[in-house]
């Protein structure tokens, strides 16, 4: 029997396959414009790899309702918590900077004790970074690489739309691109920081979501929080691993 977790995020889709004892496969693919199509592609991959026939499947992420063959859906908040606890065996405060949502989840005995999630505003999310990179004519990686060399300029607006005009006027004023990059990263870090401040968390932090593979983000976040933010090479898959673990309970 295989236990499969499918995490359809707004940007990327992550799939984890577990057997009774181990994580045996992790797959990531872009979500694209239609999560139903993405679910179909995942189905094909799973079939090709021979996981599909005897499987319990749990879907999570914002596209969780678009997976007709899933046996159950669980929110990404519970899945990230469970995934992180599985990877670390420790009650971390999980920070998930996702495509359209940023979440701070506090764990207690491996369970969600409380959580915060941004509302419809995109400030402090991966989408915000992507948009800003776009305006600067850079990829996300290029933007963080440049930011490392820059001195942060203040981007005061919390609102993505206004921040965009702020960045454009900085460009217009001839501000150095690396400084703007640094300011953009800072504004996201500050937003996450203020969310963390709203929780009672004093524990250790663990970063999941697409940005966890970016050393510079982890470094800046650690500095701002005054604590070493941990992550893991599988942290990107925390949601799908958590979902696969929920599949074991079906």
């Amino acid at each position, binding site marked *: 029997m295989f236990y499969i977790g499918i995490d359809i995020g707004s940007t990327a889709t992550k799939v984890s396959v577990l057997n009774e004892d181990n994580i045996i496969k992790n797959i990531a693919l872009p979500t694209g414009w239609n999560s139903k199509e993405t679910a179909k592609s995942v189905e094909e991959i799973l079939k090709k790899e021979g996981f599909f026939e005897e499987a319990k499947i749990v879907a999570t992420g*914002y596209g969780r309702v678009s997976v007709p063959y899933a046996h159950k859906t669980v929110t990404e908040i519970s899945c990230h918590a469970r995934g992180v606890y599985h990877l670390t065996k420790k009650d971390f405060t999980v920070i998930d900077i996702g495509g359209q949502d940023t979440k701070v989840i506090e764990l207690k005995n491996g369970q969600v004790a409380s959580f915060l999630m941004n509302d419809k505003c995109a400030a402090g999310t991966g989408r915000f970074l992507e948009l800003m990179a776009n305006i600067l004519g850079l990829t996300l990686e290029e933007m963080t690489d440049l930011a490392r060399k820059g001195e942060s300029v203040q981007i005061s607006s919390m609102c993505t739309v206004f921040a965009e005009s702020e960045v454009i006027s900085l460009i217009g004023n001839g501000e150095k691109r690396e400084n703007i990059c640094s300011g953009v990263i800072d504004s996201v870090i500050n937003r996450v920081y203020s969310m963390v401040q709203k929780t009672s968390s004093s524990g250790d932090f663990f970063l999941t979501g697409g940005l966890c593979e970016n050393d510079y983000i982890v470094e800046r976040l650690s500095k701002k929080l005054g604590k070493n933010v941990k992550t893991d090479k599988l942290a990107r898959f925390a949601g799908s691993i958590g979902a696969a673990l929920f599949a074991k309970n079906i």
Partner: protein
Amino acid sequence: MGDYRKLWESLQMDLEKHDALCAVLPELYGSVYLSQKDRAEAMNYFNFVISEVHGLRIEELNNHRQKGGKVVGTFCVYVPDEILNALGVIGVGLCGGSQFWIEDGEKVLPRNLCPLIKAFVGAKISATCPYFQSCDLLVGETTCDGKKKAYEILAEYAPTYVMELPQMKREKDIKDWEAEIKRFINEIENLTGNKLTYENLKNSIKLINKKRRALKRLYELRKNTPSPISGLDALLVSQIAFYDDIERFTENVEKLCDELEKKISILKANRKKRLMVTGTPMAIPNWKLHHIIENLDAQIVVEETCTGTRYFENEVSEDGETIDDLIRNIAERYMKINCACFTPNEGRVEDIIRLAEEYKVDGVVYYNLSFCQPYSVEYKRVEKALKDKNIPLILIETDYSTEDVGQIKTRIEAFLEMI
């Protein structure tokens, strides 16, 4: 709905725009309400009231006015219905709950203002709400800065009277409120030409107490596990309380309760989580949060809001030898409402904890209309008190638009998984 175009025309309504509003409601009501399973038969009355929301009831208001009666519009549970009714006035609640009116509201109001205020101002200036158009007088109150200032704008469109609500609850404030009610009596006497008497006031108090008692009975039934009525249906009944004929409404709530009482014995246990909603009011047709929650594995069993317990809790004492005694009783009853516009407002925190126990709730959803300052600031104190009692709580801040429905659903779902 019958043909009311002539009536609407006589009320100087913008018929074309009003058609657009009327076109969305049946579909919304169908998908939110009529799709519910195992509803009580007696809900048909309330279905009917909604289907005639801009029709039959408006005709009733019109007939009342033809006979020389007056109609007064209100925006808050603090405006004493007892006085209006005693003086032969039909009072109607005018708070706006539809996104439809926001755009017009924003023509004269800042965007970063609570949607309830934007909606009711929009409803008036667009001339698309027949209740507004039927009013001889609007009665505001100083519950929050947004409303307070919005009445100045509203006054340009319709005769408006504002009651000054004290913001603390000392003996002095209760006396002030009593004096304010007396000024209000004077105003309504002048409007109607009728005189307040001991008899008509006492009868009015009795009538409205009966209405409160009926609603209380309905809420008592929701304490059963599982509740025999959905949160959506209970919310609808509360919303209709604000504008329906008092006697007919009371009778139909009692009928509903009779049916639900019988239903309780045959209800099967389910695994739905029991939730309380606390916070800002939900005016018709704001069913957004209830609809999201009750489509998940949960049931709303109590609302600590102005469209919930705050509307009917506490009766006006019927004891008193003189008209002044009765007015004092009214002032005392109303000053027991725990609105976030008061400081301090410990009573509300106590209410939430008491209701959480009485209704055996698994968690509390703090509902905050965007930009409603009193409630959003008060959140912190409620959060702390509930944490001490180990009662799970989630804050949902939102407006009438539908763009954040997905995110709210995820947050509520995760909250349900957590508790």
